[in-house]
């Protein structure tokens, strides 16, 4: 008996190797990989079932397998996207389609991640079933807004092969660590609030250092935010010298650099791009360093609490008394804008005047969304990326729909490559955030940036509506 099992195991291993080689050696056709995946599946079954052993010969024969599949699935098979090269997720009859939300839902940055997660949950409810299968986003996962958090959560996600894709992360730093794992597992991730240029491309056709296949985002690329701020400062305010401060985080670093580059391209003088430590409270030294170059404008795309101290202490530093202060979407939240010292600052951020924009997949408008959000959570979202996360979820569910078919046993088959194919081809999609087009590197956002002037710490909605400059890429 033992001998028999050993031989059986060896034979099964050989079959696996043969199947694997088949997929790599046979360069001729896309169908080869398809068959290899199926062959591997078949081997699993074969090991359990003695009788199936006879079929092993046939498994190595690509065409025979294809015919089998075609016969089983009939017309439905022909309609789905994808070539099966990344395998399929089989959702059994009665089970749910699994997607996940991965956002910063605890700690200092929870104000950013919680609205994202709620956007995902609401979109899942609004979207309804896919081919009669209900969808679940499970328990919301936490990216902790850090590389460590992103990596840990991604490891947990890729261990569950039923998961098709994730909506997240909230922070670019977390995405840098999570994207490689998600990409290698054949899943997709669509972020509603990552904006670092490194995650997609430089918009000149070159992939960013952290770009991975299967990564998409509906948030803007910070190259556009930096350019918007630079144009506003140079053309609208008519200022010719500027400085920028970051805190070493990929988001702040990327945005400060994008601003500086765009500003010097316009012909302005960048006096310094420097950094603070996140835990610093006394900003006088760094502000003095900036003041030595006498800039007319100071852009500090950082987070709280460091941003609070910069805004508070800038006026007291000799040489910065009349410098115009500019901040970005990292500080565009109630906590910072409620502070007295933030009044008068210009903020760049995504254009959140969604008005009556309607998501074409769910038919829900931004107004409806906000009404439901307030009813469910008792207050309006604290950060602006809820719409981006909602649209990201609808895009993912559309992609699952396009890449799936119900087989003869009533199971839903989702082709992982098909999900990516669908997302790659998204053009002219109408979402809450406006028109969505995905480029070759996963940038799908509407890229519309607005700049507001903050007028009153006691009336934040009025300040958020006080748009002084609009930017849309040509």
């Amino acid at each position, binding site marked *: 008996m033992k001998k028999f099992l050993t031989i059986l195991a060896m034979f099964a291993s050989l079959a696996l190797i043969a199947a694997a080689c088949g997929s790599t050696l046979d360069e001729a056709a896309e169908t080869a990989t398809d068959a290899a995946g199926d062959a591997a599946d078949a081997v699993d079954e074969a090991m359990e079932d003695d009788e199936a052993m006879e079929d092993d010969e046939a498994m190595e024969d690509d065409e025979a397998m294809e015919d089998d599949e075609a016969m089983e699935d009939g017309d439905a098979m022909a309609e789905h996207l994808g070539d099966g090269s990344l395998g399929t997720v089989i959702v059994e009859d009665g089970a749910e389609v699994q997607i996940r939300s991965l956002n910063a839902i605890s*700690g*200092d940055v929870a104000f950013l991640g919680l609205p994202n997660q709620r956007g995902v949950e609401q979109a899942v409810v609004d979207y309804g079933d896919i081919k009669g299968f209900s969808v679940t986003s499970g328990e919301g996962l936490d990216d902790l807004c850090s590389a460590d958090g992103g990596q840990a959560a991604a490891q947990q996600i890729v261990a569950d092969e039923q998961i098709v894709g994730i909506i997240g992360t909230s922070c670019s730093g977390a995405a840098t660590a999570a994207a490689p794992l998600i990409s290698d597992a054949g899943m997709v991730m669509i972020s509603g609030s990552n904006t670092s240029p490194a995650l997609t491309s430089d918009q000149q056709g070159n992939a960013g250092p952290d770009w991975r296949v299967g990564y998409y985002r509906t948030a803007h690329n910070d190259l556009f935010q930096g350019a918007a701020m630079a144009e506003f400062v140079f053309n609208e305010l008519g200022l010719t010298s500027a400085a920028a401060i970051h805190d*070493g985080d990929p988001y702040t670093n990327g945005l400060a650099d994008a601003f500086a580059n765009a500003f010097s391209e316009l012909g302005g003088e960048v*006096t310094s791009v*420097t*950094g*603070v*430590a996140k*835990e*610093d*409270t*006394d900003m*006088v*030294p*760094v502000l*003095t*360093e900036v*003041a*030595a*170059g006498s800039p007319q404008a100071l852009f500090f795309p950082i987070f*709280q*609490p460091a941003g*609070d*101290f910069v805004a*508070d202490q800038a006026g*007291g*530093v*000799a*040489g910065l008394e009349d410098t115009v202060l500019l901040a970005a979407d990292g500080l565009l939240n109630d*906590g910072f804008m409620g*502070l*007295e010292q933030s009044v008068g600052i210009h903020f760049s951020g995504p254009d959140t005047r969604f008005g009556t924009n309607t998501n074409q997949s769910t038919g829900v408008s931004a107004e409806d969304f906000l009404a439901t959000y307030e009813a469910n959570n008792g207050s309006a979202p604290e950060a602006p990326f809820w719409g981006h996360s909602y649209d990201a979820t609808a895009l993912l569910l559309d992609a699952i729909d396009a890449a799936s078919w119900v087989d003869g046993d009533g199971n839903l088959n989702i082709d992982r490559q098909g999900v990516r194919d669908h997302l790659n081809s998204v053009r002219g999609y109408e979402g809450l955030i406006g028109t969505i087009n995905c480029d070759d590197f996963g940038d799908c956002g509407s890229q519309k940036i607005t700049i507001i002037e903050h007028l009153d710490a006691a009336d934040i909605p009025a300040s958020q509506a006080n748009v002084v400059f609009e930017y849309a890429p040509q």
Partner: protein
Amino acid sequence: MTAAVKVKGARRTGVDWFLLFLRVLLIGLIAIGLLAFIAQQIDPNNWFARLTHDGEAASRLSWPQFRGLIVTGLSQGAMYGLIALGYSMVYGVLGFINFAHGEVFMVGAFTGFIMSNKFDEAGWWDGPIFIPVILITILVSTLVATATAVIMERVAYRPLRGSPRLIPLITSIGVSFFIQNAVILLFGPGAKGYPPNPDWLEETIPVVGIEVKKLLVIVVAAISMAGLWYFVERTKTGKAMRAVAEDKEIASLMGIDVNKTIVTTFAVGGAMAGIAGILWGILFKSVIATTGFLPGIKAFTAAVVGGVGNLGGAMAGGVSLGSAEALAPLMLLEPLGVEGPSQLRDAVVFTLLILVLLVKPTGLFGERLSSEDRA
């Protein structure tokens, strides 16, 4: 045998050489940085500045900017000094580092936050009676911080009296986490803002160019320090404290209540941290449960730099540390071409600590330890 001794000797020399190299390197870098700074103040377009700034001219600091750095360094340093006093006194009397002392400071800042917001709601914070209101706030913050320190001693440290020194040290780390998390539980993890200061506090005094609030911090710190000095050096209780620090057993034989004296030490240290806490709130207008951690570590560094157990040294250590932190990025690192020098402030502090320990291990003003500790 002889070979082994030789190897041992050679190794020791190697370490010595390394330490000497480290001393020369650090002092050399400081000297070059300072010279480069002076050169760049005289002529921003000198060859060294161009070398370290990618071929471009450096920028020059104006006098008001330089003065701003000094003032901010002094006010920050005064707070470090006030916190450092607590570390130093407890170390002097009990011979262990009370790592939870930073949390006493944070509790003071939090009490100030609650008080100031209550006063603000009543419309008193920004009104004409600001001076009495701020005095009450300082008083209450000080009392709460004092109470925290005293309870800490009674609950966590007194039961451990007589045990090896490592045990209260580790306990103090536990107490630190306990207080931090208790505050998170009570007030949440987010930053808590002080109400805006009255306008006159935010203004700059003409001619001298010092912001009023920073002057207030320096003055209050100086008065507290003077009061503490008088208390320790001129009163009977102070004398008892010094006696207990010198030798607990003999002090008790002389009729001094050692327990009471130790409680007094904690109370006085706590009061100083409480004052520092409210000053912190006025200066930075924001407090968070972890506010005490970094200033606590830096104050401890200040205590070591000034000489552990030496009160004047703790204050001087705090001021020199604060000033170094404010000035070094622009006076040493920037002229050397370091990018984003302000990010390295903490590194400056701890490099200073290493340098002092290398050059004068007993601290700038010398340790004052009990006979047992010296032995």
